[in-house]
């Protein structure tokens, strides 16, 4: 692998000098020159406005120097997202298979005490950036900093939850690093012959599955669907290293500004994180009948979902919508009440572990994807379930 500077194109603007995280470029006699401590990270290649810098990569050389599995540990309001622990469980398995270390990356403010949690769940190293500017998520700061850390520490695999946050800023990082990114994976594995990460994900609305690899670029990056991977055991005696990294002093600026975070307090809408979802469709009949489903959801500790039919009738707000033009979910349990099972709805929920369908039309297509089929009136069955749950079945 080598770095070339085209003397015809170089204008000696020094953009590369500023971009280089290692101080490995200088301008001598009106031409950029590379020093021995160059790591071929590619920062200068991206920064050069004249396109004068190029890095030749041979496939077999790509893997050289990149080692370790990283998990981006998402936090919102100082709470680490469940999916981060799930990814540590999966990341641990992958790292052990490769015989490398597992790193967790944590960005936030006043979070130093949270690093230990990540170690307890399997991380060997925690890269912690503690800065007031990182308290809340912004694409530019999170993306810019993660890009630089990847260039400096060179992990071979970087994973993040396929949450709104992950799916927003991970593409920016992958693009900046000129590497591939596989979205919303539901399966990961290592092919031992060439140590490549095999990333499996649903496509075409879950009608097919595809396995993707990224052979010639590093790191290999993926966002992973919440609730699919298994959280490992929590071991408070595990030890690990906390590496503090600084945001300050880097040329990373935010071009967007978070003005306000509005939580949907009316109800639990974090469908991505819910283990159990009780969803209602047009069969619910009217807005106030959602109270019935809400009661069931509360008793089960679940969240409320809906079809577009129900949302379009304004019985419930759009963040609850599941399906092609709403959210994709895969909880452990999905209870569909009064939902016909239009394909646009099915694509958003058919990968749930267990699907229960309650519908008075035995021919409703929702029964085709159901594990438990209850033909009947939801207004009789749901109250009966509530009664059983309330008195423990007596």
């Amino acid at each position, binding site marked *: 692998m080598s770095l070339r500077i085209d003397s015809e194109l170089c204008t000696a603007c020094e953009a590369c000098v500023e971009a280089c995280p290692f101080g490995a470029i200088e301008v001598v006699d009106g031409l950029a020159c590379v020093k021995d401590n160059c790591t071929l990270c590619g920062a200068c290649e991206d920064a050069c406005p004249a396109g004068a810098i190029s890095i030749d990569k041979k496939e077999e050389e790509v893997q050289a120097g990149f080692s370790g599995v990283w998990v981006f540990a998402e936090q*919102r309001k100082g709470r680490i997202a469940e999916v981060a622990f799930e990814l540590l469980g999966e990341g641990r398995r992958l790292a052990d298979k490769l015989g490398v270390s597992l790193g967790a990356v944590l960005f936030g403010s006043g979070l130093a005490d949270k690093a230990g949690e990540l170690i307890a769940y399997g991380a060997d190293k925690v890269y912690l950036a503690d800065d007031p500017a990182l308290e809340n998520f912004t*694409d*530019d700061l999170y*993306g810019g900093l993660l890009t630089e850390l990847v260039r400096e520490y060179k992990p071979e695999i970087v994973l993040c939850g396929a949450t*709104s946050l992950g*799916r*927003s800023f991970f*593409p*920016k990082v992958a*693009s900046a690093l000129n*590497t*591939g*990114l596989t*979205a*919303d994976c539901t399966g990961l594995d290592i092919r031992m012959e060439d140590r490549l990460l095999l990333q499996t994900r*649903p*496509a*075409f*609305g879950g*009608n*097919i*599955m*595809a*396995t*993707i*690899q*990224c*052979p010639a*670029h590093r790191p290999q990056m993926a966002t992973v669907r919440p609730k699919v991977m298994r959280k490992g055991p929590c071991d408070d005696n595990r030890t690990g290293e906390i590496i503090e990294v600084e945001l300050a002093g880097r040329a990373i600026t935010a*071009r*967007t500004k*978070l*003005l306000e*975070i*509005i*939580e*949907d307090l009316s109800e639990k*809408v*974090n*469908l991505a994180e819910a283990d159990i979802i009780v969803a209602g469709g047009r069969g619910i009949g009217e807005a106030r009948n959602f109270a019935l489903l809400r009661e069931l959801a509360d008793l089960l500790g679940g969240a409320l979902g809906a079809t577009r039919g129900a949302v379009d009738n304004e019985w419930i707000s759009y*963040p609850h919508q599941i399906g*092609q*033009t*709403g959210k*994709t979910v895969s909880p452990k349990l999905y209870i569909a009440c009064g939902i016909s099972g239009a*394909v*646009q709805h099915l694509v958003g929920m058919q990968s749930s*572990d267990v699907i*229960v369908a309650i519908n008075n039309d035995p021919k409703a297509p929702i*029964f085709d*994807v159901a594990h*438990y*089929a*209850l033909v*009947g009136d939801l207004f009789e*069955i749901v109250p*009966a379930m509530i009664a*059983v*749950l309330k008195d423990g*079945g007596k």
Partner: protein
Amino acid sequence: MNIVVCIKQVPDTRNVRLDPETNTLKREGVESIVNPFDMYAVETALRLKDEFGGTVTALTMGPPQAEAALRQVVEYGVDEAVLLSDRAFAGADTWATSYTLAKGIEKIGQVDLIVCGKQAVDGDTAQVGPELAEQLGLPFVCFVRRLAEVDPSGGRMVVERLMDDGYDVVEASLPALITVVKEIGEPRVPSLRGKMKAKKLTIPVYGAADLNAAPDCVGLAGSPTQVVEVFAPQPRGDRVNIDGAPGEQARQLLAALARDKVLTVKVD
């Protein structure tokens, strides 16, 4: 405001199935549609044009047939359309797609806002928007559900971004890129004028050479990711029908879920 809307022609996912013999996609009889989210992107752009004037250009990368998708959105009021089409573009992943779209946008010229759909329903990646913004060096906001304030002369906008647990109010400088969700607003109906225009509009087609695109950055060759295999999802296990009176159905279901360890309730 000069706005570019990125649209993608996609197979109607309802009909996409895998041929179990060959493990390839069965495409016969599968209709092509404009990606549903992109119709919201078109509507977003048209509303801004209604308010501030300017030009809305629809951009797509795809096979020659994708021109039909461009003509379709012109019916709704889009002014110009550009098709990026070249055999060399085939097989592009999100990196190569966003690279090529970025080259197309550079060709279109000065742009204040780029609007994409949240995701395309064929690949479901939701990556092309933010990757495109990064290629162009622009700020972006994903999953926008409302434009609270747009100030083209002041070079800024305030938008609401849908998150998992609510929404964020985000200010961004212009030019910028947004990806939009359904809540942004239902698409209008095509106008007669638009339909006339769609028939006549000349749509330029640019290939790799026209865009000055590096051959090793487009299509399959420029894609860091490769598909190893595609396969049909595991078929559902046998369905259990739970019949009887409602009370009996409820009890049996909860007992079964407890047996499956999906629920921790005790039902006897």
